[in-house]
């Protein structure tokens, strides 16, 4: 099977096949013949020649898998066709939502609808885990709408404001 993936942002093409209990993989022009055992859920012990690599994989979402390997953390996205289209759309200009990256409480709204905003300028302050975090505009432009009020509890990925 052929796949595309991003490893820490770098895109690669992967071919992966199993035969006779071996895994044969090719990444760009590099080929690997591997044996794999799974000592625990999510843990892959990969034998490559005399080398052994323990990879611990987590993240239910295949778009953002975390792989711990030799004390390093890699982020891997497995891309399918739909996502490729979405990724193209995402790069488009226009309105953008200001998203809360974590659950928390809105302690201050710094700008209101109609305000000019610069890229990186704080729009809303969300408190979580005793830290006040300025949620910043991803682009320069104008605040179209602010969707939250001070004192309000927000969840992760909730839209706080819209800028264009």
């Amino acid at each position, binding site marked *: 099977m052929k796949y595309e993936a991003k*490893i820490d942002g770098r895109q690669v093409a992967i071919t992966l096949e199993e035969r006779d209990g071996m895994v044969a993989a090719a*990444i760009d022009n590099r080929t690997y013949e591997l044996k794999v055992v799974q*000592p625990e859920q999510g843990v*892959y*012990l990969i034998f490559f020649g005399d080398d052994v690599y323990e990879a611990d994989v987590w993240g239910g979402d295949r778009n953002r898998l*975390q792989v711990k390997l030799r004390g390093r953390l890699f982020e891997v996205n497995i891309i399918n066709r739909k996502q490729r289209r979405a990724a193209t759309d995402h790069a488009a200009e226009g309105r953008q939502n200001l998203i809360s*990256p974590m659950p928390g409480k809105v302690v201050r709204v710094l700008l209101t609808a109609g305000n000019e905003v610069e890229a990186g300028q704080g729009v809303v302050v969300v408190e979580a885990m005793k830290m006040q975090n300025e949620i910043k505009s991803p682009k320069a432009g104008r605040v179209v709408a602010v969707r939250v009020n001070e004192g309000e509890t927000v969840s992760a990925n909730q839209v706080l404001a819209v800028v264009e």
Partner: protein
Amino acid sequence: MFKKLLIANRGEIAVRIARACREMGISPVAVYSDIDRAALHVRVADQAVRIGTAPSNESYLLIENIISAAIKTGAEAIHPGYGFLSENADFAEAVERAGLVLVGPPASAMRMMGSKTSARRAAQAAGAPVVPGTTSSVDSAEQAQAQAETIGYPVMLKAASGGGGKGMRLVPSRQDLPSALSLARNEALSSFGDPSVYIEKYIDRPRHIEIQLIGDRDGKMIYLGERECSLQRRHQKVMEECPSPLVDEDLRRRMGEAAVGIARSAGYYNAGTMEFLVDSEKNFYFLEMNTRLQVEHPVTEMVVGRDLVHLQIRVAAGESLSFSQDEVVMRGAAIECRIYAEDPSNGFLPSPGRISKLITPSGPGVRDDSGVYAGWDVPVYYDSLLAKLCVWAETREEAINRLARALGEYTIEGIRTTLPFFRAVVASGEFRAARLDTGFIDRFWNGESPVREGSDEEVDVKLADIAAIAALLHARATVPVTGAAPAGLTPSNRWKMHGRLPQRRG
């Protein structure tokens, strides 16, 4: 000795104090907010009393609820840990009024040393050098700007009742002051119930070095060496060492004696920490006193070979210190990493949520003080500290090597943590060379990843490939891919997938 002790805290420090209680034959009593009902600090206690709802000002900061929990369970003493009510003199007084013993300093000394402004006055009176700044809190932007003008920019804003970087802001110039003051006062109010903020001169690339003190009620006061706390982010310590690579025997003795002098003049007893800034010429300035146990106390314990929480409890129970200053011997080097639920690849944003897997390192010279477990949902309401990883070795270099090994073993899944950040720090040449100052992290970490110092390209590509293959195997086994074979790995006879953990029956 006490038979029962209430721990007025949560998270790793509550667990650490409960461990000390078990070791001393004292029954530990926990308190908890609704959201902490199944928290680790409740699981390790003998008794547990609900004291309110999740927000800390409706539970862990409610003096009355905590004292009535102690009375109800028959606890004779209260250990406040750090944070929450640990530096609240009103609480200390209330504990005493209730006929209970606070494991901490007397309320009077806490009041004098707990407010940074009066502590500065006390240090000056005791003849210790202090950082130039205001000795009282500033209320308006205009007043602050006037004060800052005389001190000279850049200046620091600091919460008078504060600690842990909360309510603290660096102000580079005049126009930044109003918004910084407002943020600092807000944070101070929310964290400590007191919006007071004062101004201090900002010392460029300072070392942040502190002296650990322990004193008994008979007036014996001993310093237990220093800690290097220069690695900070947002003015919050993230990594501490004992001893400081900068401090020699002479400086240690001078700082230790200054610290003892200040504490004595305040009538202090129990554990406390005197924080100093040290400039590039090894001049030291009194910064503040923490009138409680510090987060980073384990590095001192490992190097001096004494248990600070045991000592705190013994002193609180009226025992005298059984050793003298001469008997304090430092051996080897210890380093602590604070494992926070923050995402270092995304500006250290908080990352609460469910921990799906937890593997803690062990083996020689490794100590993990944790407040979480696999399956625990890290709440959004409290400080993001999950655990403290400490290592000890014969030398600083060996301690760093051991730390790298232990960080490699440490696995927390389900939420983002500062583990990848620490792995990068211990690999950095600047850290190994002990070129530490409070600006280190801002220079070292660009907000997403370390500023690279060069690496082996070929090894990197191979590791990345293996990571991608593992991720693909995982994705195939767990989430069917459009167009891909639905099954995961087909087990062969000889190299079959080793059995997964069996599900419980039912």
